[in-house]
């Protein structure tokens, strides 16, 4: 399969594929971050996570249209406003969903899966009724278009770089929140031992609600970033949900580091294989490798040592 390429060409192929793998990694990581803190802390399987992401994407689409029509001067900065709106809207919906639905199901993790699947169907149909069944794309501001030539054969897209930078920032914020804030301390306590945390006075319900809201908000931001590299349709969220779940499970559900590592592994193997095999076979092979590895390490790459 390496036949017909010179060493130099192979080098640039790998570099280009690694770069597009990094963009995929950024989207995976952004989606998986929200899912991992929800699944890791609360044990809730949020099948509607993809739809929260698409909600963020549609918010970005709306914001870009509004800016284009009313304040074209500020169009180059619309993206930052859009991200904030996406975060707030998805997060608020997440809080509402937690209050109406999820908090009644904490003892039954498999049932949250069914209920949130129902929610995802409702959200999909709502998107379809409001925004139409066709895929929509956003107009990128000028400074995000184009690419930087690194060598003669390697280019990097600026919007890709932007998405990666964004992912770094958000991951950093989440890490800070988890490991340096009071809320993060409470979250980690609840993950380790829910009953005991409740006994020492942590309001576990409040922690849960905030976690769910934050997770959904991050999904919204992920959707916002997603609009820069792909178009958005009502059912786009479902395409990513399986990959994201595998990222979370493969990394070890309660470990931030594990999520990052597994998102990197999965996205890189996917994008490298994609060049040599067809896209669908690359995906099949990647998923099978992950499933195989999970059989060797059922708890994921990084296991949190917890006494139960």
């Amino acid at each position, binding site marked *: 399969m390496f036949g017909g390429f010179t060493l130099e060409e192979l080098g640039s192929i790998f570099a280009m594929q690694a770069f597009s793998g990094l963009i995929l990694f950024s989207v995976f990581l952004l989606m998986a971050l929200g899912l991992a803190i929800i699944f890791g802390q609360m*044990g809730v*399987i949020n099948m509607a996570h993809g739809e929260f992401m698409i909600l963020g994407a549609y918010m970005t689409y709306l914001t870009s249209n509004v800016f284009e029509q009313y304040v074209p001067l500020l169009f180059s900065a619309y993206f930052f406003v859009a991200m904030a709106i996406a975060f707030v809207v998805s997060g608020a919906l997440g809080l509402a969903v937690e209050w109406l*639905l999820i908090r*009644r*199901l904490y003892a*039954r*993790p*498999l*049932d949250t*899966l*069914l*209920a949130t*699947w*129902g*929610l*995802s*169907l*409702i959200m*999909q*149909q*709502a998107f*379809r*009724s409001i925004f139409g069944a066709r895929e929509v794309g956003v107009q990128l501001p000028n400074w995000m278009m184009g690419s930087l030539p690194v060598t003669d054969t390697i280019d990097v897209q600026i919007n890709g770089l932007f998405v990666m930078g964004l992912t770094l920032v958000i991951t950093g914020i989440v890490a800070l929140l988890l490991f340096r804030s009071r809320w993060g301390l409470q979250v980690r306590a609840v993950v380790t031992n829910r009953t005991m945390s409740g006994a020492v006075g942590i309001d576990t319900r409040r922690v849960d609600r905030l976690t769910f809201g934050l997770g959904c908000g991050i999904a919204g931001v992920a959707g916002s970033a997603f609009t820069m590299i792909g178009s958005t349709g009502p059912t786009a969220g*479902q395409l990513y949900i*399986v990959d994201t*779940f*595998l990222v979370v*499970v493969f990394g070890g559900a309660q470990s931030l580091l594990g999520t990052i590592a597994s998102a990197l592994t999965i996205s890189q193997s996917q994008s490298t294989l994609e060049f040599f095999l*067809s896209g*669908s*076979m690359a*995906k*099949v092979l990647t*998923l*099978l490798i*992950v*499933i195989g590895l*999970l*059989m060797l390490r*059922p708890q994921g790459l990084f296991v949190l040592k917890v006494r139960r």
Partner: protein
Amino acid sequence: MPAAITNKRNLELIGFALIALLILVVLPLALDIFRLNLVGKYLTYAFVAVGLVLCWGHTGILSLGQGVFFGLGGYCMAMFLKLEASSPANTKIQSTPGIPDFMDWNQITELPFFWVPFKSFPFTLIAVIAVPAFFAFVLSAAMFKRRVGGVYFAIITQALAAVMTILIIGQQGYTGGINGITDLRTLLGWDIRTDGAKYILYFVCCLCLLGTMFLARFVLTSKLGRILVAVRDKEDRVRFSGYDVANFKIFIFCLASAIAAIGGAMFTLQVGFMSPSFVGIVPSIEMVIFCAVGGRHSLVGAVVGTLLVNWGKTLFSESFPELWLFAMGGLFIAVVLAFPRGLAGLVTDQMIPFISKLMSRSRAASEQANAQPAPAE
């Protein structure tokens, strides 16, 4: 008399009898062949739901990949029918006569090796059950021996459903791609597209379903069934009592998959094609929902749930296609929140106590009337 009705075992048998009456007598008399064929299609999903009652309701293994096994069974049957439909005489306009048409379109000139055994009908009948069961065995043995369970198992089966769909769609030359295996005509020379054949296949499907339900009931009422429930409720305690929990889970998962596969084969026969749209994540989860709506602990409930949800889906999507997804989503949430034991749970928890209360009250009243003769004397 109230005791006879409220007794759980009798109740289940009454349910079985009512189901049999409904699908064997009432529906064939009430519906034309087009609608009856639709009901037959729903009943093939009911096989999957019955399997899910075994592995999810009673053993606590939620599989989000039952569509894979349904599809494997269906594809095995479809491969046999397709080979029969593409005899050299039927396909003489192709560049290589004697192979299925989609292979010819994809420049494949020789029958792939895994298609060859499907020329034999006995082999196909065995493969319909054996291939999915073997697949389920490999998967579940690898998982349960390593003590991967619960949510993790659900997610991995879901990933497998995704893999399976991608694989079928990607390997168009071997599988027919996204269109699936279509244009199936005869079964051993018997035209399956005529109305008469559809009636016969419907009844065969019903009888198979009733047979599977009795098999499932036999498993559940046996000692094995009680161990399975114990595994669901407190797996560790069963393990500490000296049972090898993994073996029980592997067995029940394979059984559920084989049952789903029979459904798939009946689907292919009645509907006349098989495609990846019945294999992936969405159909798999829908089948779980059928089971949940009817009641995940009740065999009768699962069948009734499947019929009701599908009937509602057809009815709704004919007249209000927009509303259907809202209704379906709302239904899931309502079922999970309000009655997690499904329709069957409503019957056993609400209706039966109500009836027996009414009956005991009327009996008490009549006893009172007997015990105290009118004071007029």
